[in-house]
């Protein structure tokens, strides 16, 4: 195991005057194997960044221990953990050139000059910034700065690479490019990597394994498929994708079959009250005859076309075969 976290708890003294301390992490244990790309996924304020910062030594845990590559790192300062850290807002050294930024960690370690120069150039090529060695960071775009920050973190040959919302400050298109690029980079360099994100799509696309963190606790650990197909609870199901309610069960909107004729056993009849086309998919809202709130349904455009759906159409809804369902809570 590359990272072994045991019974980690982090509390902050309350700021709002109440005597209850704020619990950022509540008895978290986690083990992350070597060479894997893991996502810490969860809503903002859920404790995932705190967990990452404690692994890096930038924050200290109230109780619990952190082990990196078999070494107890709980009380080691960040300088001695051999961890690469990438920040959401790049944390570039503004007064240094791109090359100097990347070389910083190696210079601290007093590597020979020739080696530093060679390796800096190698790393800049790796992150596609070979042309920009002599620029100042202010002359780079956000995506380029983040790639530079990544090269800088990789330069010290860290045993683990930690990324805190690395693409959070970038626009949607660059974000998607960098996401693919990070995946390919990881396949090339194989360093154990943990990244924090609140974007489930990002986590599902990039990570080998996802750790869902919410309110200071680990809700579920598993591969993207496992989490999507077998969510451990309501929260995980809701966080990993859209959820709607059909009769007595909760399920994903695309796991509902739509028919324009009655027939299937247990079908829920209703009327289409909203219809919205986004790209290749069509989103419906169906008001069931028995009341109980609108049901969301997603189907492809061509399917919707074939069914000749329009506002006010009468439809019969059933859960698809093999759909992931969990019982709806009575109060919903």
């Amino acid at each position, binding site marked *: 195991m590359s990272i072994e976290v045991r019974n980690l708890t982090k509390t902050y003294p309350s700021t709002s005057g109440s005597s209850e301390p704020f619990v950022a992490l509540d008895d978290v244990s986690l083990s992350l194997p070597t060479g894997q790309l893991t996502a810490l996924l969860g809503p903002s304020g859920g404790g995932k960044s705190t967990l990452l910062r404690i692994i890096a030594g930038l924050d200290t845990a109230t109780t619990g221990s952190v082990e990196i590559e078999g070494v107890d790192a709980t009380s080691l*300062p960040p300088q001695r953990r051999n*961890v690469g850290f990438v920040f959401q807002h790049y944390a570039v050294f*503004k007064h240094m050139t791109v090359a100097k930024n990347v070389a910083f960690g190696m210079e*601290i370690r007093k590597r020979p000059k020739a080696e530093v120069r060679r390796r800096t150039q190698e790393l800049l090529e790796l992150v596609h910034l070979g042309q920009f060695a002599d620029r100042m960071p202010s002359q780079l775009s956000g995506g380029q700065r983040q790639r530079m920050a990544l090269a*800088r*973190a990789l330069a010290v040959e860290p045993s683990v690479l930690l990324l805190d919302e690395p693409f959070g400050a970038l626009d949607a298109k660059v974000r998607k490019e960098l996401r693919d690029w990070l995946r390919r980079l990881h396949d090339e360099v194989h360093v154990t990597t943990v990244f924090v994100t609140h974007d489930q799509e990002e986590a599902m696309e990039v990570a080998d394994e996802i750790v869902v963190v919410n309110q200071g606790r680990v809700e579920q650990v598993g591969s993207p498929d496992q989490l999507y197909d077998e969510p451990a609870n309501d929260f995980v199901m809701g966080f990993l994708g859209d959820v709607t309610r059909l009769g007595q069960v909760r399920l994903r909107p695309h796991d509902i079959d739509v028919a324009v004729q009655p027939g299937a056993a247990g079908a829920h009849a209703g009327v289409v009250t909203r219809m919205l086309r986004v790209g290749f998919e069509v989103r419906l809202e169906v008001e069931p005859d028995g009341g109980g709130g609108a049901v969301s349904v997603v189907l492809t455009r061509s399917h919707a076309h074939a069914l000749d759906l329009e506002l006010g159409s009468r439809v019969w809804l059933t859960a698809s075969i093999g759909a992931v369902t969990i019982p709806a809570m009575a109060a919903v």
Partner: protein
Amino acid sequence: MTSALVDTLARPALRRRASRTNLTPGSSLALGISVTWFSLLVLIPLAAIVATAAGGGWSTYWATISSGETFAAVRMTVEQAALVTLVNVVMGTLIAWVLVRDRFAGKRLLDIVIDIPFALPTIVAGLVLLGLYGPTSPVGVHWAYTRMAVPLALAFVTLPFVVRTVQPVLGELDHDVEEAAASLGAGRLTILRRIVLPSLLPAITAGAALSFARAIAEYGSLVLLSSNKPFQSEVASVRVMTYIENGSTAAAASVASLLLVVSLVVIVLLDTLSRKAARRG
């Protein structure tokens, strides 16, 4: 007078001259008003002092400048101002650091009190220092009327400059950057030397320029605190006053114009340094 010019020149607005103009009628008017105001207050009086200095002819000018007393006064002023500025660079940065980074009882009070030397009439500053370091000193330190009086008074009145220029920049400094350096293996001293100080350098040099300008112009506190003996503890501004009291306006203006040149040179030097620092890798 000199200090007014120097303060104005140190403002960042004048630092970057646009290579092209982008003047609309509105901004032309604003520019016109600015230039007129600046001329009335600063440029024309300055030209006048140069004219007065020249009025006595080259020989008077040279005789004044090269007289032993004047030379000694100007030299001491520049030396002491430089020394005090150096002290301010160190102490001011330290005080700014404490005010921004540390949490302690009385921090807010200290933050306000820092400006007192700046807000006090300088003659009052002299009086305050005389109380503590004068002949009736309660702590037994009799620095008044000695050579120590000059740096003491200058340090007192110039204290806030570096503190106040560094403080906001230090406050805005991204904490991430220091954490990034730490995770790359840099110790606290290395982070300070290679990451924090280079980021503060432009602010420090700006503060140093203000501090030097203020020191070179100081008069009020020195009149009281220093014995103003020629060749020993007489600074240039007091020398100017002496000339005026003797009715030698041209000589006074000559000293003033020399001070003007010195200030200009130092400010240009510091400005170049801070720009280099801002650009350097």
